[in-house]
């Protein structure tokens, strides 16, 4: 994640780079999210102007998808699979323990800003569960202790 602040200039450059596509909004939001770790509020009117759509429409799309955050996350993002195949091998218990030990809840960030925990419904690692993902890196056959140790780093 870049340390540069989301200036109008930086945002406009990202918007322009995707604008040639057919239906550019999702690739555009992904590129902003990747650059800043969230979709800054300042981006919404700029996108609306560039694509000639309403701000409400941009907001509607941003808020529809689980991937797009509107506030920065913690230093680590931990996604724990809640889907059935992981539940079959203790995934629900694992998630409860991780949340309890970190003292947080789903979609929230720990008080020290270290980690944001989010649910994910399937990482496609269903024969090697329980599965999780830390900062985009998939992990399989994990325990609560291993996940906590990973995000403590």
């Amino acid at each position, binding site marked *: 994640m870049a340390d540069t602040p989301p200036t109008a200039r930086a945002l406009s450059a990202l918007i322009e780079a995707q604008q040639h*596509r*057919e*239906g*550019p*909004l*999702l*690739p555009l*939001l*992904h590129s902003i999210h990747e650059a800043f770790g969230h979709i800054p509020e300042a981006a919404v009117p700029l996108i609306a102007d560039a*694509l000639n759509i309403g701000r409400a429409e941009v907001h*509607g*799309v941003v808020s*529809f*998808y*689980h*991937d*797009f955050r509107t506030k920065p996350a913690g230093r680590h993002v931990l996604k724990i699979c809640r*889907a*059935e*195949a*992981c*539940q*079959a*091998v203790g995934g629900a218990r694992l998630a409860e323990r991780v949340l309890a030990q970190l003292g947080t809840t789903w979609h929230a960030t720990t008080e020290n800003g270290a980690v944001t925990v989010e649910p*994910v*419904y*399937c*990482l*496609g*690692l*269903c*024969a*090697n*569960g329980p*599965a999780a*993902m830390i900062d*985009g*890196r*998939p*992990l*399989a*056959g994990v325990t609560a202790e291993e996940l906590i140790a990973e995000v403590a780093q």
Partner: protein
Amino acid sequence: MKVWLSCDAAARALGADEVADRLAEEAAARGIALEIKRVGARGMAWLEPLLEVERDGVRHAFGPMRAGDVAAFFDGRLEGHGPTEDIPFFARQTRLTFARVGRIVPLSLDEYEAHGGLAGLRAALAEPGRIVQQVIDSGLRGRGGAGFPTGIKWQTVAEAEADRKYIVCNADEGDSGTFADRMLMEGDPFSLIEGMAIAGVAVGATTGYIYLRSEYPDAIATLTRALDIAREAGLLGQGLLGSPHAFDIELRMGAGAYVCGEETALLNSLEGKRGVVRAKPPLPALKGFFGKPTVVNNVLSLATVPVIFEKGAEHYASLGIGRSRGTMPIQIAGNVARGGLFEAGFGLPLRTLVEDIAGGTRSGRPVKAVQVGGPLGAYFAPDQFDTPFGYEEFDAAGGLIGHAGIVVFDDSADMARMARFAFEFCAAESCGKCTPCRIGSVRGVETIDRLIAGEDVRGLIEDLCETLREGSLCALGGFTPYPVMSALERFPDDFAPAKEAAQ
């Protein structure tokens, strides 16, 4: 010395990269010239990370490999599993769609061609006018879950009049217990590209999109590179393999919405809108991406097309049972001793898959239930395990095969909790367009809670499920009753407090 090590996301998630580093270090320390080929997964998930070494021209398997096993491996002290393809889980398969996965280096176009790749596209380009009929003759049906005949869909798009047409690959594999699309895209990406090119030639489309879920970073990386390589090699772009046909593909990333696996929601998402389901008709085949005729097919459907042309439609159709022709890459997951990808002709009884091939549960406890077809699929009880794996056969048994994921649960599973989860999932992922799904799922969670607490509200749940089934626009709301009602009907003891209260 030449070794093959899996680079599949599951293997990497279990430490395959650390194993690769240790292998290189240890070989260097011992003065051994080592070539490590990173390949897709063989599909034997319980052996991952899987390492193979060649002996007398045959690849032998070792696994699960840990970094700590590397020294023992070089010393010859590590016990292996013998020739990889003789392991019963592998030997019992009929691999067509997955023929190359695990055998070839995913991004090597040379290895792809050496193992039959591009033969299908060449055959198709030789007689473009016959492509659609051959796909119809193969009996291939949509592998994403709906099971609609692929050739008929292509015919509709081919016959539609329009200035532009599109091929859209649905790679939004969100069903729990499924990972075949991921394995294929990571292990043999050119087969998908080849299949999409054949589809493009068949219907007269020059642009394709792959809508790939963001939860699959490895598949995204592999496919991105595969598209570049294909373009450089003339497999995409103007003049496909020297023919007059043009076709190119753009990769698009989803954003974590399960409902975008539904084809009309996917099209809206691709257009840059909320992933809200559209009413059908009009069919996407006539009015799809930006209102143009569009083929929307699952990864497996498209990736199976090349082998149909390579081996002939008749060969493909000769496998399977009833109206389920060909092979299905079945994904065995959850609490199993031996999970992974098992491709076989349709027709194997569920019992064979669960007890024999998967070897029962990982925990060693009795199997209680098997959910087939993802979060919208029914829970099967052991007395239904004789159901043969096929579209109509599972429908008749009150379920569906979906994308062919099977998730096994042992006797510690609480089916009331699973029924509750089905509603909870529907509530979390509903696109919000239709009321039964948006509101009904929330009421469903509350009503199951009342049932668990001892209130006799079974009738309410049955009513609610009927409303969802009959009144929802798409399979998310329409099929959520499958897991709910199957859990309620086949595992009534788990809802016992309600029973006691009623007495």
